[in-house]
């Protein structure tokens, strides 16, 4: 129902008459309720993968299916959290979260309850009537996440959601997302170039090559997490201190370093 | 839901269709006899009239002579507006006291449409060159002033601080820091100024002139010669485009030299 399947996906960009191959044969299955992170060098096409699941871009070859159905257009069952937050500046926090429910056709009487629930969940109480420009980056992204979750989507697509936040806010958001994801599990595709973030959040980490992007390796994190019982630790810095964590992180770093051209550091 | 993409072929097809619709409907109505040809000439009738006016004088002069008249006044008014507005704006941006003194007066007069000065223009200058020049000046002056002012006022403070720590005098700062830094704003302002000035010219010539394109159109209207009026409109539009293109070119060259 919420299984994401990439089959033989290739993506070609044409600019000024020249063809650029950005994705070269992606085969990937994200199981139901699995949290998968994609990391890779800039331009490797990881965001393109997410946008194809979202229905904002389409493969030149191959298919992208969600729940067995071919993706043809964007929709609320595949909710997106954008790096730029993408909140409507003219709507209040409440109205922003409400908008998706309204478009879904949920009657007004029934909309209040889920909105209130997610405002509480994302610690936004008191800000219901605020406009996005009055909020910090972290708060805005919380609204965006609340907006996405309020749709009760089968699939959650997060495109470097914490990329625009400062380091401290980022850490806080990562902890919150882990709590949220464990409580409300669903299929998640998470794009990032921060390896630590990927290892901390995901069940599996997909490492991509540089352009034209292919899958270099898929690292299974969940088994290590369960074996080492990271979930017993409360804080993110404690988890990142674990030898098992460091080991995984270094492994991924090595894979990424292979991708660098001579001359880059 | 996305903006539809357009192939080059579709673009040209639709654009041509757009033109065709305009000229088609125009020609059809003109030819149908529904409206007397005095009131609605055909498109080619207008072109014929334009050509005719280059040889046969109307309202005193040929169309080129009227144009020269108009452009002459325009350059005078625009030139004055730039020559006074730009330096004044720069000085106002630098000397706070000057800003405080001039701004209230400027703001008060600003809301009066340039064309409202026509009666005084007529009173003071008759139908001589002074009248339209005054109106053009009133139209072209505000943008020139405001943009020079903004350019000077919002210069990066760092530049001024650097100059001051190097011991530059006030005068030197104005000429060698403020002025160059404000150039993009000044040039943008002059482009707007040029456009507004040209528009004001037209208005002035409709009322207080005895030559010029506006005057030509008024006389054309008086003799219900729509083709003359339309020929005038085309001439005005064409010169307006030329002025705008020239100034945009100049703006682009200046910006390029400065590495933007």
């Amino acid at each position: 129902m919420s299984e994401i399947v990439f089959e033989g996906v290739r993506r070609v960009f044409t600019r000024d008459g020249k063809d650029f191959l950005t994705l070269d044969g992606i085969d990937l299955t994200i199981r139901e309720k699995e949290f998968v992170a994609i990391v890779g060098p800039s331009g490797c096409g990881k965001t393109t993968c997410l946008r194809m699941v979202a229905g904002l871009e389409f493969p030149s070859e191959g298919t992208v299916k969600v729940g067995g159905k071919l993706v043809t257009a964007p929709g609320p069952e595949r909710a997106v959290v954008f790096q730029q937050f993408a909140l409507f500046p003219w709507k209040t926090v409440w109205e922003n979260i409400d908008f998706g429910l309204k478009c879904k056709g949920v009657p007004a009487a029934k909309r209040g309850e889920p909105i209130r629930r997610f405002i509480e969940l994302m610690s936004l109480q008191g800000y219901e009537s605020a406009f996005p420009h009055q909020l910090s980056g972290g708060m805005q992204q919380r609204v965006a996440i609340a907006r996405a979750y309020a749709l009760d989507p089968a699939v959650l697509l997060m495109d470097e959601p914490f990329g625009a936040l400062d380091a401290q806010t980022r850490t806080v958001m990562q902890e919150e997302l882990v709590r949220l994801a464990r409580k409300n599990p669903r299929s998640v595709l998470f794009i990032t170039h921060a390896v630590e973030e990927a290892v901390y959040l995901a069940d599996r980490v997909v490492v991509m090559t540089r352009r034209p992007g292919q899958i270099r390796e898929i690292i299974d994190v969940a088994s290590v997490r369960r074996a080492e019982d990271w979930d017993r630790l409360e804080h993110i810095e404690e988890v990142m201190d674990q030898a098992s964590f460091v080991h995984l992180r270094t492994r991924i770093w090595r894979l990424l370093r292979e991708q660098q051209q001579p001359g880059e550091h | 839901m996305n903006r539809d993409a357009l192939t080059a072929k579709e673009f040209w097809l639709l654009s041509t269709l757009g033109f065709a619709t305009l000229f088609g409907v125009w020609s059809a109505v003109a030819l149908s006899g529904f409206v007397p040809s005095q009131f609605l000439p055909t498109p080619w009738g207008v072109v014929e009239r334009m050509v005719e006016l280059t040889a046969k004088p109307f309202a005193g002069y040929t169309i080129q002579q009227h144009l020269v008249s108009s452009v002459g006044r325009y350059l005078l008014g625009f030139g004055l507006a730039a020559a006074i507005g730009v330096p004044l704006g720069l000085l106002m941006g630098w000397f706070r006291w000057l800003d405080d003194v001039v701004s209230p007066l400027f703001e008060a007069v600003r809301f009066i449409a340039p064309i409202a000065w026509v009666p005084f223009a007529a009173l003071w200058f008759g139908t001589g060159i002074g009248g339209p020049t005054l109106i053009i000046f009133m139209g072209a002056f505000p943008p020139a002033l405001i943009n020079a002012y903004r350019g000077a006022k919002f210069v990066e403070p760092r530049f001024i601080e650097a100059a001051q720590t190097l011991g530059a005098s006030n005068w030197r700062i104005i000429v060698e820091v403020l002025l160059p830094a404000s150039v993009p704003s000044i040039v943008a302002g002059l482009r707007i100024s040029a456009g507004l000035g040209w528009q004001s010219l037209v208005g002035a010539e409709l009322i207080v002139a005895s030559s010029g394109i506006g005057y030509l159109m008024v006389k054309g209207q008086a003799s219900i010669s729509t083709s003359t009026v339309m020929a005038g409109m085309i001439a005005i539009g064409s010169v307006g485009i030329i002025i705008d293109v020239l100034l945009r070119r100049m703006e682009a060259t200046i910006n390029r030299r400065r590495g933007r």
Partner: protein
Amino acid sequence: MAARRRFGRTQVAVATVLGTFALWYVLTATGVISAARFASPREVWAALTQISVQGYADAKLWQHILQSCKLVLMGFLAAIAVGVPLGLAMGWSKRAEAYINPIFLLLRPIPPLAWIPLAIVWLGLGDAAKVMVIFVAAFVPSVINTYTGVRALEPYLVEAAAMLGAKRWTFIREVLVPGAAPHIFTGLRLSLQASWTTLVAGELVGALHGLGQVLNAASQDIFPAMILVGMIFVGVCGGAMTWLLGAIEKRSMPWRTS
């Protein structure tokens, strides 16, 4: 410190205005500026009283103001009623843009005032001709700025709306229009300015009533004081309408900081 500075500025502003008044009074009283060419403050006051109480050019001041405002509103509202939706369509649909743009390219360079002779030929010297020219003058800025507003809409906002499942009319009403609103209002402001300029010009050329007609009559009667009265009220009415538009703008966009 800043408050003191602002207070100082107000003082200077008031001083400047009073100073200019004083200068005006002196120059006209001593005859340095001849009475035939300009008016003294006293004469202006007398003219103002005359037009308000007895009337001038066949009507009282408030009637002239009403007439002018009426025509401006008619032309302006008609222009934005057509122009803003057209701008939205052209901004959103490349097809619409390709089709309509050529007509625009031809009409745009022609200054609005250049339409006056044509309007008079077609519609005579009455109100209709003036409304037509005001329409043309107000139309172009509203289309262009609305178009710019649509194009300026951030792509990720459009994508977010698609992802959230917004259908066509919901999208237009709740995303497109609010998103383009700042630019749309800029267009409205420019349209209003153009409307006033065109109105005054049209009434100067020929009208029965209106502020422009006051100017015209005063010009023919060589009545500088009345000319000034006319000019002052052209400024005041134009300024008042602009201020009103600004107030509407502020109230419709509560999320704007500046």
